[in-house]
């Protein structure tokens, strides 16, 4: 019963990731793609949590933190790139 529910949840996450990847491919503007990319990262985090429950191991829990941090940093970097055209600014406020 529990295994069936976990499998159903994993399948739902898989479908959602596929839909988001579709939005990344067709998305008309760059921010569309980045919103979808952020969502894919968040969904990967939760599907890894489900996988670690299915395998009853706690070895994957570090992966959750790392992926969450990577998704956040990449979103911030992309939005800085959209706003300014550069990620790291060298111009000083004189």
């Amino acid at each position, binding site marked *: 019963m529990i295994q069936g529910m976990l499998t159903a949840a994993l399948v739902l996450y898989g479908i959602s990731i596929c839909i988001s990847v579709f939005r990344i491919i067709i998305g008309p503007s760059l921010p569309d793609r980045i919103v979808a990319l952020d969502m894919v990262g968040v*969904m990967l985090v939760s599907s890894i949590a489900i996988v670690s429950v299915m395998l009853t191991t706690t070895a994957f829990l570090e992966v959750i933190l790392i992926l969450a941090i990577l998704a956040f940093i990449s979103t911030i970097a992309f939005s800085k790139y959209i706003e300014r055209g550069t990620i790291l600014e060298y111009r000083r406020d004189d």
Partner: protein
Amino acid sequence: MSIDATIEFIAALFMLGGAMMAFISAIGIIRLPDVFTRSHAGTKSSTLAVLLTLMGAFIYFAANQGFYSVRLLLGIAFVFLTAPVAGHVIIRAAYRANVKMADTTVEDELKDVMDKVREEAKKERSESGEVIIEDEKVSDKEHS
């Protein structure tokens, strides 16, 4: 059904609910008309989805193995802190990059304020004799 099995069932129910929220969020991201409404689907409901799922995993490990994972709690706190910030920043960048809104948009209140501020800044610069760099042209360019 023992008490541990019941708690595990509740944890699995949490995870299934989180997956359903993620599915609803995916429907939103494919169906809504422009980037501003899509970010509503992409940030709010996926935050709830990851919250429910990680909470379910935490409860499951607590009931099944007696293991109270601090890493899962940290993950919950981190996602809960960063998802709204990321959504805000990316939509702010999208607005400044002049991404086109949907045709059904009724009102854009920020536009008047932005125009006024931009005009005032331009006047101030021309009074102080500062050279205007190409910066504004770059930010006005539409990303497509």
